[in-house]
């Protein structure tokens, strides 16, 4: 996050806090639980997502004295950690989740791991059994700091009330600075009950082993500038780090000044407007073919705040072989981790980009853009989502609603202005392909961990963080059912989040892998679903079911018109749609499975028909495989 955001966080300190941060006030005697609340106020926290229980009860009791801290009762602790995460991602402010010891804390784990993988700043506060009972397998005792050690940026077991204020302050500091991430503070029940004089520490935080890097070394900047100057086919790979550092403006300036096209990672969406002429769109496993080709053919990669995840590189041995590489990241351990680079720069992206911008120069190369335009024209031929009145790609089944169409139309009818929060699966990739984001922090999705069940709770958190924004939860029918109990939370808190279920009756993304790589054995991917509209109606949520493309606009508008709480649209879509293009896991980045062009598709159809005739003439017992082949061939696979 940017310094500016950090400053906002600091300014948001509540005036009603016992000891204002400028110090001066006399010390008061408070319980540990009250100290926790005081510290939350000092950090500018306004919402806590959580779930009570025995070991955290003193803190819940103290919360009654702090009405400025609004507590949101989730229906599962996983929901609390995802909501805190969604809250954090929508603004860059630290999200807070709270849970009791044992099962409460373990239920937070998926959300913590999700936040860790995507560098999202959250602080989780868990109750623990009293200090004297720790290690005795007491009722609801779990070694939570042990369990979360590899999935937190840092964690604490508070063993004395005296260290509580400092620990709380460090926790927020560590969560929000440098490469942000989750921090967990485990507080034994007796520490919450004990009393101590409370003076909010005012001296600067001293952490000898923690000092996030800022500016780059001049030598590295010079080396990077030289590579940029000499490059003929450069491409910028923009990741999540851009928006987290608030370096969006600098990114645009660098690209414009040096005339370099930009490819986005999934979490990089929003780093620059996708309408920007230099923005190519998403790279990677389901990225644009033209983007992946450009990366493979580039002579210079400028990777900014991204980490060369295997989902964006494909086969590392053949990845962008002909290119020099510059990598800028705030985390030194990311440099040379997956991809060996020529110039590795560690620093805050805003600072580093400003350093580069001062002196960057490069002669634009029209031929490079022409090549990319050719690849793009080829992609457009294969495009399946077209205006309803335009001639459709022959592979589009007549009268079927496609998930991809739903997202494209949602983009249109929300004027591209919503914050979208996705779950994980095909619908997530369609959102990434068809919802063009303009602003930072406007797409919230679990990229690194790929956590199904993230969508709904994260959307609730995002909406509570940005009540002024339109928020859509775009979820699959599978993932929705993992955390759909949070519908109740949304209703209780009157959170105006619009839920779009892309309902294909399948664990669609897994089905796609089975179709491509497991000879169409659809084991455990078809689902018998509840009637999602009836389900939501049981919570008093207004719903619409959409089965045809022509109904989308009205349904979206009806949803948007509702303001008092959540709404839900059940989009019943084609069951066996494929996300194209696809780089099979581990394949070369430009070795993509493509949707055929209309001409290719028609030729394939003719060949198949001819082959089928021959087969029928020869034998009559091939029915089952032929049926399977027909299924697989619908989209020209």
């Amino acid at each position, binding site marked *: 996050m940017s310094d500016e955001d950090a400053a906002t966080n600091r300014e948001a300190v509540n005036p009603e806090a016992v000891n204002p941060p400028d110090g001066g006030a006399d010390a008061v005697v408070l319980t540990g639980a009250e100290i926790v609340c005081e510290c939350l106020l000092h950090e500018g926290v306004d919402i806590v997502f959580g779930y009570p229980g025995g070991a955290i009860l003193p803190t819940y009791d103290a919360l009654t004295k702090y009405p400025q801290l609004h507590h949101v009762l989730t229906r599962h602790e996983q929901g609390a950690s995802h909501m805190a995460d969604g809250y954090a991602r929508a603004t860059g402010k630290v999200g807070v989740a709270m849970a009791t010891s044992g099962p409460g804390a373990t239920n937070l784990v998926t959300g913590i791991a999700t936040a860790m993988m995507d560098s999202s700043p959250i602080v989780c506060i868990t109750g623990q059994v009293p200090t004297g009972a720790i290690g005795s397998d007491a009722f609801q005792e779990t070694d939570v*700091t042990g369990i979360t050690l590899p999935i937190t940026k*840092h964690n604490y077991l508070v063993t*004395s009330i005296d260290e509580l*204020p*400092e620990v709380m302050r460090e926790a927020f500091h560590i969560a929000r600075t440098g490469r942000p991430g989750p921090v967990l503070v485990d507080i034994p029940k007796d520490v919450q009950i004990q009393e101590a004089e409370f003076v909010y520490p005012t001296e600067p935080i001293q952490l*000898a*082993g*923690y000092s996030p890097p800022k500016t780059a070394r001049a030598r590295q900047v010079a080396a990077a500038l030289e590579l940029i100057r000499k490059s003929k086919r450069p491409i910028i790979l923009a990741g999540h780090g851009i928006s987290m550092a608030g370096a969006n403006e600098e990114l645009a300036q660098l690209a414009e000044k040096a005339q370099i096209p930009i490819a986005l990672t999934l979490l990089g969406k929003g780093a620059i407007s996708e309408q920007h002429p230099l923005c190519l769109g998403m790279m990677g496993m389901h990225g644009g073919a033209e983007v992946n080709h450009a990366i493979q053919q580039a002579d210079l990669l400028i990777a900014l705040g991204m980490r060369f995840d295997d989902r964006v590189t494909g086969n590392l041995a053949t990845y962008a072989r002909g290119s020099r590489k510059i990598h800028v990241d705030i985390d030194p351990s990311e440099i040379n981790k997956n991809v060996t680079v020529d110039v590795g720069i560690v620093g805050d992206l805003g600072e580093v980009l400003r350093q580069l911008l001062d002196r960057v120069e490069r002669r634009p190369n029209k031929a490079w853009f022409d090549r990319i335009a050719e690849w793009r024209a080829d992609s457009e031929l294969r495009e399946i989502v077209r205006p309803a009145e335009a001639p459709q790609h022959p592979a589009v089944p007549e009268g079927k609603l496609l998930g991809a169409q739903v997202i494209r139309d949602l983009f249109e009818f929300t004027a591209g202005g919503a914050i979208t929060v996705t779950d994980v699966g095909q619908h997530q990739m369609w959102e990434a392909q068809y919802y063009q984001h303009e602003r930072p922090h406007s797409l919230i999705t679990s990229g690194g961990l790929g956590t199904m069940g993230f969508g709904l709770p994260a959307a609730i958190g995002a909406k509570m963080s940005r009540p002024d924004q339109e928020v859509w939860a775009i979820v699959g029918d599978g993932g929705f059912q993992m955390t759909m109990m949070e519908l109740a939370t949304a209703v209780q808190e009157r959170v105006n989040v619009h839920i779009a279920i892309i309902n294909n009756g399948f664990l669609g993304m897994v089905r796609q892998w089975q179709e491509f790589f497991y000879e169409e054995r659809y084991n455990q991917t078809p689902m018998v679903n509840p009637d999602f509209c009836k389900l939501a109606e049981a919570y008093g949520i207004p719903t619409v079911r959409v089965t045809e493309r022509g109904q989308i606009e009205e349904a979206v508008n009806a949803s948007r018109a509702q303001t008092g709480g959540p709404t839900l649209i059940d989009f019943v879509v084609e069951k066996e749609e494929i996300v194209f293009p696809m780089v099979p896991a581990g394949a070369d980045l430009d070795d993509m499975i493509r949707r055929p062009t209309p001409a290719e598709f028609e030729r394939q159809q003719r060949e198949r028909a001819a082959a089928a005739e021959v087969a029928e003439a020869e034998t009559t017992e091939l029915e089952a495989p032929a049926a399977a082949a027909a299924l697989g061939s619908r989209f020209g696979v």
Partner: protein
Amino acid sequence: MAKHILAALVENRPGVLARVANLFRRRSFNIDSLSVGRTQRDEMSRMTIVMESDSAEADRLVKNLYKLVDVVHVDHLHSQPSVVREMALVKVRATSDNRREVIQLCDIFRARIIDVSAESLVVEITGEEEKLENFTELVRPFGIVEMVRTGMIALGRGGHTLKDEGFKPNRSRAAARSNVL
């Protein structure tokens, strides 16, 4: 592949050793030895980590160690002139027939005999890894009953020290401080 010796200054906070050990496992670093001990400052411990790897891997470990909040400073002693020592206690089978031979070997290696019984001797030997290895090879024919090695510890020579200036212990935390375990 080469032997890399890393020295890390860590804050004496509970769980630091677990964090470092977890890092080895989690990022699959293959560690030859790890030794942890007190330093000239109460609030800090020093870890010496030895790994057989290429230098990129050692680099990766340094960077990952730095990511741990409790790790104050890490040095790649391999790239510095440094003194390296390890100690071993070796219980060698030695009866009246061959005790003299074993004692002679110990003399040559400047190893100390710190326990004698009718059946065996316990030998304390300190030195660089190679010396320890040579010694154990030579006494092996007599029979090594049991043996333990400390793992390596190392210091930079002369003015080369691990930076700890930036570090000031925290008032209220000092009370709550414990060892690295």
